């Protein structure tokens, strides 16, 4: 999996249709191994968040159904729409207006 130009890639299981992010060679739901690499739209919403001295840490739920840990650049609340942008070696999220 790569994190180029703010894009978030994920895996789609061709056997059960499950979309997942943390990369494995088997689908975590059905253990199938026919997996397709796809690129996310980059759009999602905040599942949970916390603000600490080093920034905002969150779990983002992408529109494709998978969730990932990430940093968010603006103050957010649960349910806020966010969009992936390029950070240093990682995508980060900004709040959609």
């Amino acid at each position, binding site marked *: *999996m790569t994190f180029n130009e703010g894009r978030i890639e994920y895996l789609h299981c061709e056997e059960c249709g499950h979309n997942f992010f943390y990369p494995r060679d088997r689908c975590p739901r059905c253990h199938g191994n026919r997996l397709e690499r796809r690129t996310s739209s980059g759009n999602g919403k905040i599942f949970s968040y916390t603000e600490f001295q080093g*920034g905002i*840490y969150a*779990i983002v739920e992408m529109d494709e159904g998978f969730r990932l840990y990430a940093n968010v650049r603006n103050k957010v609340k649960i349910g806020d729409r966010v969009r992936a942008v390029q950070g240093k070696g990682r995508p980060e999220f900004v709040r959609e207006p």
Partner: protein
Amino acid sequence: MILGFGSVVQKTYPGTTFQLMSSAVDQALEMAQLTRDKIDGIIATFLPGTFDGNVALHFYTSQLAQYLGIRPRFLDYVDFGGASALAMLYRAEKAVASGDADNVILLVGGKASPVREKRVTADSVDRAFSGIRLTPFDEVFRVYDDMNPVTDYALVATRHSHLFGTTDEQRASIAVKQRFNAQGNPRAMYRDPLKVEDVLSSRMISTPLRLLEIVYPVDGFHVFVVGKSGGKSNMRPLSIKYFGEAHWPEMPPELPDIVSTPAVESARGARSLLEKVDCFQLYDSFTITVLLQIEDIGLAEKGKGGKFAQEVDFTYKGEIPINTGGGSLNVGQPAYMSGGVILEEGLIQLNGMGGPRQVKGVDTVLLNGIGGWNRAHSTTLVLGE
């Protein structure tokens, strides 16, 4: 049965981690009325960085035996973090029952100070020490800025409040009641009276978690001795009434939700025993951890843990005593694992050794341990005579 126990817990222990462990072993053996030559089993646990700042100890359990001068015929290692101690006790009881060993010592602890001084924790130890991988996915996980485990548990607390309306005051009341209990524990590090307002005005660390909701990592070892009854030990002949363990290895974002722990499964078989339990010792890395277990072991429905925490008197004087010695929130968390703290307090209560904080007529105790940066491990133990 448990023949004896001992512990040495200090903010910063001046000697080596081997010396710290050895002095806790001496205390436990004195209570068990045993000498080192009678010990033929060791079960240990370990977290990177907590043994004099070493990331790993090659052939760890063998090094422990080497230093202690013990030649075991039974060696085991459990790496469930905070959930280890209770699993180690269960395994030791089985080893003794099967004849694999006569007397087993459980070694739980280490020195947090070398890790603490680098301003990281056991769950962000990869930021300060090289050669550590936390997950199979670090390339897309550890690239983010966090302060785990605090930030990860903060995500849980945020979500719990969002779903169920849990308030900061409700979580704070857990810290307040545990502090009341700590006032009856002369060995607690924090014993000054505490009010909800004090918790709410303490420094915000990771929203919504504040300083007084978070354990302080310390140096310490807890040692427990397990063997057959009939020896010289004066301890009550306790046995395991229930043991359950459950492991949810998923990355928390992949769980259906993040507001439950595997205690839902490890404690399921103990539901029928809850009525008999005289006090509870629940893992308390953070206030939210206690709240989650109150729900997951079945003291309150999911979502009602906040109400329980605020309304139920769970001090040692109350109807449902929880964390009667103040818990690790007040004793300190040795080597980033509170399992030894809760097991020791359970044994103190069962043996009537609680002094001012002793709950009357304790015959059955339920303990729950939680471990792993992602709350992957839960162990539930019910001890009684």
